[in-house]
């Protein structure tokens, strides 16, 4: 914190950042108490896109809630699909065929890459560089085409089913995916040369916007924010689900805890996701994509169930309370950006406005998922 930010000035003013502001990427409002360009206090104001998904869950059957999960985080919808089906499969004790598990992993990881590409573009856009966004979208477009062929939608997927996936993949999908990975592999050095090594970018991100591991713990931040503080916590490894234990991948961490560390973690995760997809494509077994014994009407036994997945933004958890009927009694969605944003107030104190916005961008917020 600078000397200026520490001196006690009474001349502060309130700056409303949002709900319509180019940097908030959605309808987030941050009430900033400013001292010149220094932030005294930042208070995120939520709820502008609150849809009460949890109440909707109580009014629908277990299966009918599936499309809602794709609308929480529109950038990595499949992870949220995955979290929900895992929870229900755990509750109803449904086994999933291996081929379906592999297809889930391939599509989820593709979705993670596309989510990180959007974040990459939008983050550099926050920093005033417009061009990388178009390049990232160029790559993402291919992922959307691939996933569209499989899932039938481009953004708000609803592809997974309790006990498998909605339909099998074509051989074209595998060749297309592998071709895409080859292309992205060739393009990653370009991104690093043009963006990561850019002197202005480095000056804006390095040693700025610290989110230490202890702060992450106090606020429950997970995902790249936590890994950017040096903690190698990844639900895919900590609580292995699906076929992740059979795949070889690393958990990228950077111990610095600054905006640059979070940036690098996400860039490394793109590489790791590519590795996972390649392995999953070669290991993909034949067989059914839907459990034959999967019940048509789901009535889980009474009790609590929890399932977590590693979404693109962190640990996404679903807590189910079943009363044995065909609708959930209570359905809690634990979304990662919610916890990641909650530390913004503390982390941004005393920062300059442009640095705080870089910090906010590096948290990778998706507002519908925070407001639910």
């Amino acid at each position, binding site marked *: 914190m600078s000397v200026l930010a520490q001196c006690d000035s009474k001349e502060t003013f309130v700056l409303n950042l949002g709900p319509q502001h180019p940097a908030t990427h959605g309808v987030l409002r941050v009430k900033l108490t400013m001292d010149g360009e220094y932030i005294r206090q930042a208070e995120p104001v939520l*709820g502008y896109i609150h849809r009460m998904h949890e*109440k909707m869950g109580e009014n629908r059957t277990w299966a009918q809630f599936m499309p809602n999960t794709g609308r929480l985080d529109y950038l990595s919808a499949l992870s949220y699909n995955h979290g929900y089906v895992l929870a229900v499969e755990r509750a109803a004790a449904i086994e999933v065929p291996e081929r379906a598990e592999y297809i889930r992993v391939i599509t989820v990881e593709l979705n993670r890459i596309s989510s990180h590409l959007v974040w990459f573009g939008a983050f550099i856009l926050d920093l005033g560089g417009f061009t990388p966004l178009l390049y990232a979208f160029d790559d993402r477009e291919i992922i959307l085409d691939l996933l569209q062929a499989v899932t039938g939608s481009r953004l708000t997927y609803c592809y997974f089913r309790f006990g498998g996936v909605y339909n099998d993949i074509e051989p074209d999908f595998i060749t297309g995916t592998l071709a895409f990975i080859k292309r992205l592999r060739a393009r990653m050095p370009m991104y690093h040369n043009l963006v990561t090594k850019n002197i202005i970018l480095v000056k804006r991100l390095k040693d700025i916007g610290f989110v230490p591991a202890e702060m*992450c713990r106090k606020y429950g931040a997970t995902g790249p924010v936590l890994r950017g503080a040096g903690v190698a916590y990844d639900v895919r490894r*900590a609580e292995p689900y699906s076929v992740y*234990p059979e795949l070889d991948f690393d958990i990228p961490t950077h111990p610095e805890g600054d905006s640059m560390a979070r940036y690098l973690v996400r860039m490394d995760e793109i590489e790791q996701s590519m590795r996972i997809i390649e392995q999953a494509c070669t290991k993909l077994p034949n067989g059914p994509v839907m459990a034959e014994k999967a019940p048509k009407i789901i009535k889980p036994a009474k009790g609590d169930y929890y399932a977590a997945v590693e979404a693109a933004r962190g*640990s996404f958890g679903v807590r189910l309370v079943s009363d044995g009927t065909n609708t959930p009694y*209570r359905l809690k969605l*634990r979304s990662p950006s919610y916890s990641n944003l909650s530390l913004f107030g503390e982390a941004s104190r005393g920062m300059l406005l442009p640095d705080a916005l870089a910090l906010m961008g590096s948290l990778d917020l998706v507002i519908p998922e925070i407001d639910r």
Partner: protein
Amino acid sequence: MAPGGGRLTMISQELKNALAKLAVNEAVVPDFKDKGFHLDVAVAPDAVAPAAEVMNLAGFFLEAITGVDWLAEGQMEVVYDYNHSISPGRVVIRARVSRATPELPTISAIYPGALWHERETHDFFGIVFTGHPDLKPLLLPEDADFHPLRKDYTS
């Protein structure tokens, strides 16, 4: 590492003992594969803050706080999900309060991340967290006086 199991069986005996002192009945140790958590402890409403202190000292982080409305029993349950990022283990701490006066102490002094979760739970269930610095609506409109996740709520 087996799917669903893995290195996730370690919750130290010390932690179990510390929580057992606060529990109202015996802690449940469910099978992780079936339930998705490792330890389920029911505590008295007054004990949520000491329990949070225990979890904090053990290095856990707070995943979420949420409520469940047990209308038939005239009670509301507050569920605290804890998790550890280095030696994982999910611990669920739950406390029941009466529906007529749903009040229990805040843990936001221990976990500042609880500030928002408690505000959200207050929005949805009307559960009052005493000692919370600012229980204004978080996700609902700022003038909201209804609690949509209560089972007797009709729009």
